[in-house]
């Protein structure tokens, strides 16, 4: 049976067919759906961990106990999970262990475009890279086999155009795996210096053995004929095939670490011109150059920045552009992503913007608070950096800064890695004010449960963290909750907490307006005779409000009746929608 599925769903299928029983992940675009689709198979335990480090350590534990285990994360999540990764390389596995990591060239939904292949190289673990959904499934299965065969965690690298592109997948049966027997083996699994020193040579020998395996394994293959040769992998392979079909000789690499030597040297010798086409960093290119192979084109033609396409590659090879419609119609305004109409974050950001507060931001939907007209965020770095960053900002800036600076962080991000920063604020004592934007879900990645929502990945009831109690427990005595739909309440809380000489937490609590459990109110209406066109309501940057002919207008298809704009209208021109 063939099915059309995105790469992530195919990876989930491959994990399932491999007989894997434990998957622990933290959501992150473009990796999230791997774990969501895996959860559709009820004979696997699937969970959202608080962060990627926990997820990988859970997978390690499951592997240690003898099961096949997996975790999935986005590229920057790999940074968080890097600590266990590097030593897992030394311990190796018991049951097969696969780490799925999804890169985001072009930064569709990310803060940087780092190349995960560097992790495979530096942690000395093998990495497979599929080029379509069928390969996603097959490579996921192969990754478990390789993991057990070579006693190593195996990384499966995706990128946005593989993870989120649907293509055909032939389904197979699930292999039922008994757990491999667990036997205590301190020399292998207790990584203290005496043991680790003995493990490191094993790691080096393993890498050499896998490089040998890569010479003639089925995942690296040569296609086409011609005097021109291209070495490529993943999505770039598809673009190259789109441009050249079978008219060039292609070495398609499925194992991107370790890279083979003889295969590449022989391929290079078989063509007159040789190019490496790879997105992001020159990993394959550097390997070729280290082997003394002369390239006719690499990063000089295909820069390490952004996403490629068939058009980009055709143009780099000097091919004429396609004929297209004359699309010149003048300037087309940008349409950046925006906070939704009725987003509970808006009230807080409006207030912070109004009082010109310095705001150290974090990763989530609320990063959109940086956009005009709210323009309320000063910095965004990585998960959790708002809180720890604020502490440093206040240490350097002193009392003046403490009185006009806050951190904002979502509920899921706070539990991911914000709470440690809060512990530091309490312990090392700055009068910092932290605002937790608790919308009761992990929003940006498409509504995943987290330890503060009271539900697990499958939506079943679960232990629910009491955020107020948690903040108090780490040493913050001033903890208060506000409703972000109430602008006065927000303003009072922010002013008061900034004024006091002790650290404090404001929890801005209201569920994400896109949650199915949140019922929209009737759209608001503008009483045109009362509207003076003063544009006070426009300062919210609500996509449901616009100005038409000098008067405010509410788009009834977008408005959810949150009423925040009503509080800004001095002329009482915004009215509740009429009940039908």
């Amino acid at each position, binding site marked *: 049976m063939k099915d*059309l599925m*995105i790469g992530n769903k195919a990876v989930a299928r491959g994990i399932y067919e491999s007989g894997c029983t434990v998957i622990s992940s933290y959501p992150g*675009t*473009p990796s*999230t759906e791997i774990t969501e689709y895996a959860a559709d198979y009820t004979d696997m335990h699937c969970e959202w961990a608080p962060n990627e480090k926990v997820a990988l350590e859970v997978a390690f534990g499951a592997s240690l106990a003898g099961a096949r285990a997996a975790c999935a994360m986005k590229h920057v999540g790999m940074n968080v999970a890097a600590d266990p990764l590097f030593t897992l390389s030394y311990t190796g596995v018991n049951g097969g262990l696969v780490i799925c990591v999804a890169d985001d060239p072009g930064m*569709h*939904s990310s803060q940087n475009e780092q190349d995960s292949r560097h992790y495979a190289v530096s942690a000395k673990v093998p990495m497979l890279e599929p080029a*379509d959904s069928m390969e996603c499934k097959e490579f996921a299965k192969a990754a478990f086999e390789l993991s057990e065969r070579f006693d190593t965690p195996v990384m499966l690298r995706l990128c946005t*155009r593989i993870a*989120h*592109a*649907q*293509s*055909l997948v032939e389904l197979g049966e699930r292999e039922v795996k008994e757990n491999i027997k667990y036997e205590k083996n301190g020399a292998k699994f207790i990584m203290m210096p005496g043991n680790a020193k003995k493990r490191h040579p094993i790691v080096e020998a393993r890498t050499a053995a896998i490089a040998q395996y890569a010479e003639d394994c089925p995942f690296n293959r040569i296609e086409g004929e011609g005097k021109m040769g291209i070495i490529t992998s993943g*999505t770039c392979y*598809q*673009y190259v*095939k*789109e*441009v050249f*079909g079978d008219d060039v000789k292609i070495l398609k690499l499925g194992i991107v670490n370790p890279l083979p030597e003889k295969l590449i040297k022989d391929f290079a010798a078989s063509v007159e011109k040789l190019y490496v086409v790879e997105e992001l960093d020159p990993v394959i290119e550097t390997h070729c150059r280290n082997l003394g192979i002369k390239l006719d084109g690499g990063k000089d033609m295909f820069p390490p920045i952004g996403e490629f*396409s*068939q*058009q*980009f590659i055709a143009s780099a090879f000097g091919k004429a552009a*396609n*004929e*297209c*419609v*004359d*699309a*010149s*119609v*003048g*300037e*087309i*305004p*940008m*349409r*950046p*992503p*925006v*906070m*939704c109409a009725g987003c509970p974050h808006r009230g807080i950001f409006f207030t912070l913007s109004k009082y010109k507060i310095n705001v150290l931001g974090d990763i989530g*939907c609320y*990063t*959109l608070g940086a956009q*005009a007209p709210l323009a309320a965020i000063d910095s965004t770095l990585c998960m959790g950096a708002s809180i720890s960053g604020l502490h440093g900002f206040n240490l350097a800036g002193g009392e003046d800064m403490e009185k006009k600076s806050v951190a904002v962080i979502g509920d899921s991000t706070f539990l991911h890695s914000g709470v440690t920063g809060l512990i530091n604020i309490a312990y090392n004592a700055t009068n910092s004010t932290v605002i937790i934007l608790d919308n009761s879900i992990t929003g*940006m*990645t*498409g509504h995943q449960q987290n330890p503060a929502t009271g539900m697990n990945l499958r939506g079943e009831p679960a232990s629910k963290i009491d955020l107020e109690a948690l903040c108090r427990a780490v040493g913050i005595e001033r903890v208060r909750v506000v409703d972000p739909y109430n602008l006065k309440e927000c303003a009072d809380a922010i002013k008061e907490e900034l004024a006091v000489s002790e650290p404090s937490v404001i929890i801005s609590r209201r569920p994400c307006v896109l949650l199915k459990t949140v019922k929209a109110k009737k759209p608001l209406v503008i009483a045109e005779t009362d509207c003076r066109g003063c*544009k006070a309501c*426009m300062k919210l*940057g609500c*996509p449901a*409000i*616009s*100005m038409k002919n000098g008067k405010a207008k509410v*788009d009834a*298809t977008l408005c959810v009746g949150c009423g925040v704009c009503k509080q800004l209208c001095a002329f009482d021109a915004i009215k509740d929608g009429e009940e039908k």
Partner: protein
Amino acid sequence: MNNTVKSALIVGVGGQGTLLASKVLGRVVLSEGYDVKVSEVHGMSQRGGSVVTYVRWGEKVYSPVVTDGEADFILSFEKLEAARYASCLKKDGKIITNNRETDPMPVITGACEYPSDVLEKLKANGADVFAFDALSLAAEAGTARAVNIVLLGKFAKETDIPADKWIEAIKACVKPQFIDVNVKAFNLGYGIE
């Protein structure tokens, strides 16, 4: 290059249901026996931003994306978005678009004006543009949310794939309680001239 591959762009504003439209289209061309690739958009860009989904089908499809001059069709949920991606259209390609305007944030904040005449300009440039009020037809079917399926209905008429194949795919892609309204929306779009 493989000239037998057909390409369509489904463009709109995040939240308008472009993913469902691409899902149905993908399923239909799959049932016709083609190789298919569909490239979706997830994450931040979905939040009210400009979104584009690529659907490609043919004997063998390599790239999941569509670039300049490759699209046979652009199916657009909003006027401005039709214009934004128009360079992807082949010389003899066709744009099918909803004629509604949704102000992007720079227009809302007053940083620029909504260029209401983009479709006329495209037509003047020689593009084949069919614009209609898909929102009203969706409302007539029972929900404004069905704009995507109304547009798909009009698009279906442009292909040589029979209507019942599309309806079958819609039934497979939406929840049982939404089948009726979506089939109605499809038929309204299919019937428009």
